């Protein structure tokens, strides 16, 4: 057990170090959410004046939306890294060692989680610098970060599974392009749920992106709704576990097909 933990740590360490080495790349990946934040923030600033929107400041409303969207879009690419490691022979080199197979999987889940958490915190801070308020305080922000990590895990595991099974970059790119915008706009990321058409609201209830937003907004409000926050976080956790399990299965499939 301790051996597995040690191995997980060192494999995670490797990926974190790789990420730090490409700190510039991490910054670049943040450009997009920042643009969303400030462009949308300015463009739709007066949207909150619509009757029934329910918030005073659109920036306050937008920050969780951008955090969650970023969690989806950045984690959709995880499969690319997996493919590259397979093609480079790095995965096989690890598999030839007595390393615990679970440790290889866990390391990539943990790395994705840490990376999502860091990005989410940065976006929250940038929003705060631009004047956004988080009435729910640190607890609310923590729930936002945690749900973004859970949601990120869902999509990185999915991307892993797709990469591992189909071994095609095009599929990963296609999937990401195909899913990102519908999932974002079929949620309350940019528009209050009460103002969405009925069918979209129905679709949103099945959308994990919306679960993350409901949980985060519930916790971020001045009078936090913990029941909603924990309920949706629990749903997300369940989905994340399911997706990681699926991606573990595809990893086993890869090992059989070597």
């Amino acid at each position: 057990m301790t051996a597995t933990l040690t191995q997980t740590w060192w494999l995670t360490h490797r990926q974190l170090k790789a990420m730090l080495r490409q700190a510039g790349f991490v910054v670049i990946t943040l450009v997009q959410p920042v643009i969303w934040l400030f462009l949308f923030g300015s463009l739709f600033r007066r949207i909150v004046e619509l009757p029934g929107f329910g918030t005073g400041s659109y920036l306050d409303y937008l920050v969780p939306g951008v955090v969650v969207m970023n969690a989806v879009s950045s984690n959709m690419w995880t499969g690319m890294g997996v493919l590259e490691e397979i093609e480079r022979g790095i995965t096989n080199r690890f598999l030839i060692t007595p390393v615990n197979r679970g440790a290889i999987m866990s390391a990539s889940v943990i790395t994705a989680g840490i990376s999502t958490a860091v990005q989410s915190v940065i976006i929250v801070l940038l929003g705060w610098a631009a004047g956004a308020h988080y009435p729910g305080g640190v607890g609310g922000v923590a729930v936002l970060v945690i749900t973004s990590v859970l949601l990120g895990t869902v999509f990185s595991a999915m991307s892993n599974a797709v990469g591992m099974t189909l071994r095609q970059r095009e599929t990963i790119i296609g999937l990401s392009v195909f899913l990102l915008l519908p999932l974002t706009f079929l949620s309350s990321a940019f528009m209050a749920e009460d103002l969405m058409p009925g069918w979209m609201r129905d679709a949103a209830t099945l959308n994990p992106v919306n679960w993350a937003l409901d949980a985060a907004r519930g916790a971020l409000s001045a009078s936090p709704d913990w029941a909603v926050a924990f309920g949706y976080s629990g749903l997300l956790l369940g989905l994340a576990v399911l997706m990681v399990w699926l991606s573990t299965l595809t990893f086993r499939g890869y090992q059989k097909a070597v």
Partner: protein
Amino acid sequence: MITDTTPAIAAYDLVKTYPGDITALDRLTVEVHAGEVFGLLGPNGAGKSTAIKILTTLAKPDSGRAVINGHDVLRHPNRVRREIGVVAQRTGADPQATGRDNLMLQGRLYGMRGGRLDGRVTALLDRFGLAEAADRAVRTYSGGMQRRLDVALGLVHRPHVLFLDEPTTGLDPETRAELWAEIGRLAQDGLTILLTTHYLEEADRLADRIALVDRGTVVASGTPDELKDQLRGDAVHVELRSVLTEAFEPAVYGAIAALAGIREISVDGRRVSARADDGAAAVPAVLAALDRAGVPVAAVTVARPSLDDVYLRHVGRRFAEADADATDAATLITTGGSR
């Protein structure tokens, strides 16, 4: 239980098929003794890499058994993994990380740590001439440096058995020669080495024993000399000073045919060729016979049979042809990954 007679590497009747009815291994059997350098020689697509994948626990055979130092690869893969080091066909090093980082992580995956790991990594960096480049990202390494790092990665945990899968493919001649020398040193250290290659020269030069692999099975095995000796006969070529007139040819033919131990004589213009059990010993007799026949000689060469001749005899086609066929087939199949 390990005794002196337990082979370090043993594969019995390995069968492996891939989807699409591609038979990679067809009852492949190989035994490698401890401390031996053993070469699996065959054209691309012969099944060498598949055999390595099974022996190194990466792939599972459809049937058959493989044992490394007494440990069954299917029943005790982790015990096998501790016994073996592997240098794969493709470099497995992380190009973004430094050479040292790659080695440190590799050691940690085997449970090494602290001063013992540091010391081992530094020693390997020194030994493979990578000390100066140790803290540079691997992507800045030359092809030869990367290959040396690959070998070092395979040795971090002090394995008893080393697998080298096409170690010199794609290297320039100078780097290849360096790596050959390094493999020779490893063999002197007492490592058991199984190497696959599709270079005849490489197998001839490095391996104590060779198995010729074709279409997933071993068609011949032995020391390089044994294999060549099975061909019974060196080629003796004589170049004459002047072209023989047609009337004179039978006389020359007859003069050589009268000698003992010489066969397959051909006389063609200025060239006389024959096969002899012992080429060097036959040369004086051949020269004397030609002298008696009054035919002046310009040059004589004796060629030992090459592994290519051996391959031709066992497989029925020249090595290069088989290699080219396999490459064509591979481009047609394009299943991805090497077999």
